[in-house]
């Protein structure tokens, strides 16, 4: 698959190696970090970039052929879905009552009763309602 005497293959190899490094660090972070929120940080950032780099390596190795295009599409979807999923998990965890690690330095989300007492700017509530006072984003 990889012939390291060819420059493009060598670049692909280095990029994939970098991706592998970040994926490993992401897994290590899952084990080492103390609570669900910190673990999500490692899980989203490192694993997103790691997977992104491995797919980029595939693209460099194969160019824009059937495999390369699959890699491009996967890069786009990984970059879009991974932060969205992390946000959903973080929000759901907080609402399910998982507190922050004891060494944390503050939790504004808990202070504001999980957003129910959020200091939303004036005008924001009216703006969220469409014509005839209909809820646009319930």
């Amino acid at each position: 698959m990889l012939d390291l005497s060819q420059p493009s293959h060598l670049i692909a190899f280095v990029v994939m190696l970098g991706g592998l490094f970040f994926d490993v660090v992401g897994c290590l972070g899952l084990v080492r970090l103390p609570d669900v929120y910190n673990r999500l940080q490692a899980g989203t950032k490192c694993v997103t970039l790691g997977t992104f780099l491995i797919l980029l390596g595939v693209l460099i190795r194969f160019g824009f052929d059937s495999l390369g295009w699959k890699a491009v599409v996967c890069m786009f979807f990984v970059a879009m879905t991974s932060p969205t999923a992390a946000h959903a998990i973080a929000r759901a965890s907080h609402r399910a009552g998982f507190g922050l690690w004891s060494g944390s330095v503050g939790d504004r989300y808990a202070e504001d009763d999980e957003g129910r007492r959020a200091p939303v700017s004036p005008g924001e509530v009216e703006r969220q309602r469409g014509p005839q006072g209909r809820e646009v984003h319930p």
Partner: protein
Amino acid sequence: MTATAGPLVAHRLGRFVSLFVFGALLWLAVTWSFDAASLAVGALLCAGVAWGLRRVELDEAPLLLAPLRLAFALAYLPVLLAYVVRANVDVAWRVLHPRLPIRPGIVRARTTLRSPSGRVLLANSITLTPGTLSVDLVGDVLYVHRICVPEQDPDGATERELRKFEFFIRRIFE
């Protein structure tokens, strides 16, 4: 059929066709094959997806029809990528450090963006960049988990970081 139903049907049909075409292009990009079986499966899937999304409305103008917005979207990619790489090196350093130098907490920051799509892109960008993870968005108030909360004025410092992203996102969506 009433007088008002005509435009709605046309609108839905137009959306169905555009979603179908978009899905078909994506399918061709992924399968890279033009044999009859593959095209038939792709057509079925695209029709299913287009039908499933028939009620999903976007309230912003299509990005591709505005060259300036598209230009800012393209300019945003390398900026975001630079932040992503920096974020990763930072998190990797913290994870690999023997003493685990973290100071986590959830801070509150206000966004100046108005459009829902812009806010979604901002929240996702935050999640991918330096030690921050979006937890919730209530109106214009964004709750962000930070792996290392600044000692002084954590909320204000986070807001100043948001402004850098908002510069681009505002020009893409607003």
